[in-house]
């Protein structure tokens, strides 16, 4: 027994040469350094703020903001609190982010497929688009779009008036004024009908899959889905008395309108238009590349094999090529979506009241720099974490099941 312990003591190195001990030592050193550094920085912040007489904490969120926000989907006025102003900013970020993602996906997919077109001209045009858009800073593109709208579109009060599109929409340096349906309770029920239709479609698909597994027959799911999706809201609309009133904007100088501004309709502000166009066109350039490489990555043999099984061309694409291509396309595309949402913070440069823009105004008014910046950083972090969590879930969901 004694001999044994002596033996192991001899083979064991000194404690400062033991890799595990060294690892623990270095970790402690690094952690102490990081904590001490943060401690020092935050201590300085508190001290500097005490000197400036600024109170720490998020209490300012309940104070009156005192500034107007040019566009908001919830009611907001200067008398509301900073907290509500932040909420308006967050919602504005979400709106432009969500619409931008939809538009970027559509444009990007079209351009990505166009780059693979057998038609030389179309392929070249698509690749010229991708190269141009990707190699010019987004901020410059935003400035260009903003300038195009505010400086090159006609002033609606001038001689020629705004650019009229069939008399129901107007393009001018005040943005895009378009006819909107007059709000009617029926629309709420139509929305409910759409939700019911979507739920119905999910059940229909489950049923169709079971049916196919059991009998080998494929139900025309797409057709039934479309019928459900269009039919249900249509029935609601018909039943509720077919509200068809449109609120058509009247340009300035219109006999029934106002001399200086548009009356009625819905207005899309120049800031929103510039941001939306810039973000979606820029991001679409990146998505196009992802789509192209994703499709190219599916081996041609897969298509041939599927055709050899007797599948029709549409089915080959839907059942064989796309699922494989999507597996490659989706992860980088989600990170592009994330980039788009983050890039929407450039709104501050052209005056769209997004989260950062509102936060910046708050910061300048209250001096609560640490709180304001931490707030908008936290919101972006939550968005990115949510998107990456979704991505991880999706990745495990579609992962190849290998033996």
């Amino acid at each position, binding site marked *: 027994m004694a001999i044994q312990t002596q033996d192991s003591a001899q083979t064991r190195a000194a404690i400062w040469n033991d890799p595990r001990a060294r*690892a623990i030592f*270095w*970790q*402690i050193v*690094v*952690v102490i350094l*990081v904590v001490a550094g943060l401690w020092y*920085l935050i201590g*300085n*912040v508190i*001290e*500097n*703020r005490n*000197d400036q007489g600024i109170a720490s904490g998020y209490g300012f969120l309940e104070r009156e903001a005192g500034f107007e926000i040019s566009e908001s989907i919830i009611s907001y006025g200067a008398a509301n609190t900073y907290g509500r102003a932040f909420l308006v900013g967050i919602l504005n970020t979400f709106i432009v982010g969500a619409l931008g993602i939809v538009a970027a996906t559509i444009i990007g997919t079209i351009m990505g497929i166009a780059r693979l*077109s*057998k*038609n*030389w*001209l*179309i392929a070249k*045009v698509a690749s010229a688009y991708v*190269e*141009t858009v*990707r*190699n*010019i*800073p*987004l*901020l*410059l593109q935003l*400035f*260009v779009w903003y*300038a195009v709208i505010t*400086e090159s579109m006609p002033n609606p009060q001038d001689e020629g008036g705004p650019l009229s599109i069939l008399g129901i929409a107007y393009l001018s340096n005040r943005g895009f004024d378009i006819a909107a349906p007059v709000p009617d309770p029926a629309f709420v029920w139509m929305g409910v009908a759409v939700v019911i239709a979507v739920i119905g479609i999910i059940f229909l698909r489950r049923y169709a899959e079971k049916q196919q597994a059991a009998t080998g027959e494929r139900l025309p799911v797409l057709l039934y889905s479309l019928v459900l999706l269009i039919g249900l809201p249509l029935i609601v609309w018909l039943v509720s008395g077919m509200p068809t009133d449109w609120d058509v904007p009247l340009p300035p100088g219109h006999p029934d309108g106002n001399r200086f501004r548009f009356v009625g309709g819905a207005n899309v502000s120049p800031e929103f238009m510039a941001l939306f166009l810039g973000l979606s066109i820029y991001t679409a350039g990146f998505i196009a590349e992802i789509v192209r490489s994703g499709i190219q990555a599916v081996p041609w043999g897969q298509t041939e094999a599927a055709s050899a099984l007797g599948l029709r061309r549409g089915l080959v694409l839907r059942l064989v090529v796309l699922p494989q291509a999507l597996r490659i396309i989706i992860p980088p595309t989600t990170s592009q979506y994330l980039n788009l949402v*983050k*890039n929407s*913070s*450039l709104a*501050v*440069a052209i005056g769209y009241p997004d989260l*950062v823009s509102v936060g*910046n105004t708050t*910061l300048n008014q209250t001096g609560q*720099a*640490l709180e304001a*910046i931490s707030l*908008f*950083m936290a919101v*972006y*972090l939550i968005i*990115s*974490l949510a998107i990456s969590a979704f991505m991880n879930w999706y990745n495990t969901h579609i992962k190849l099941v290998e033996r």
Partner: protein
Amino acid sequence: MTDQTAGAATPPPSRPPPGLSVGPLAWIKHNLFNSVLSSIGTLVVGAVIVWLVWTVFDWIVLNGIWEAGPEGEESATCRQQYGYCFPFLQDMWGTILFGTYPGSERWRPAMAVLLIILMLVMSALRVNWRPHLLLAWYVAAVLAGILMFGGVLSLATIFWIVMLGAPLVRRVMPELGSGVGQEIPGNPVTDRLGLFWTVWLALAALFVAVDLLAPAVTGAGFDTGLRYVPNTQWGGLPLTLGLSLIGCGVAFPLGILLALGRRSNMPAIRVICVVYIEFIRGVPLITILFMASVLFPLFLPEGVTIDKLLRAQVGLILFAAAYLAEVVRGGLQAIPKGQYEAADSLGLTYWQKTRLIILPQALRISIPPLVNTFIGFFKDTSLVIIIGLFDLLNGGRIALTEPIWRGFYPESYTFVALIYFAFCFSLSKYSQWLEGQMNTGHSR
């Protein structure tokens, strides 16, 4: 010979060639009018392209305005006529390219930019990928700095420039001083550090001592003969290039450390690196720049200030480090496990293994994605405009604030966009070319 063939059956008359299989017409038919749908696409897209090219040609070439108005109203002709306004560029190109840099001194940033571009081109050639390149970059950076700042170089500045350059010189000429170290064996200090670093540290300590005791001596300087231009007046392309190159240069080693940390076996270090990287990648650059411009002054103790340009630079470095770390991590992950194990079995320490075996291979494969990250970063430096710095994009905007040139944004923005495009496009083509070059060993 002829008799023999004549005896055989006469060959059947050759069939007519298949319709349109070679030649430009066949190419057009095959690539542009392959099917009905393709033909419609060609016609529609073609019409749009022709219209677009014609509009631009008409605007710039046919109607381009070259004639400036009288002094003080150079924009007069341009305001009356339709067409690209060249007097705008004649008047404002200096402002766009060099921002608020004093007008009479603009040759200096111009020289600095040319020097940097020359260095970029030299670095692109693989024959130059040797330690010499690092030294050349150091010299170029110092020269560019002197050109940009001008004024009086104090003895202290010159001393530290030489001292920081010395290790690079030694790297290029390893024989320099390496033999000398072994001549005095048994000395514990030189044994541990080598003669070079012993002398280096001694000189540095001596200088710091002199600096503290007699600041007048080290403060004395050498006049470059150039007017001093503080960095608050810098702007335009030199600023954009400087921010992005210095940013990447400093962020790169940081990024390597972060990437190594993220793959470390030590949980505490891994967690710190992951949190840092994911935090920075999760928030927009603007918020980091805001943090740099608003919070950094608060982070510092009372009385210490750092100027705006430096703050932005630090913010950009913190940002770039996280992204570069992810690229380097990709490279690290691609190194086969056998390399790590082989290095371990040779008895190398962690740092020897990393420095001599892993990083040289990992960085080599990460070069093309690193170039792509740099392109993104180069474009992203344009955001410094939001915290009020005058980079290239802002140069284009200040030119438009000139009362007579208000509203000439197409001229200004196309000029700026072309410069950005030229840099980014050539870099991205270079990265593609490089990828092909470096793949030769693996692809068949």
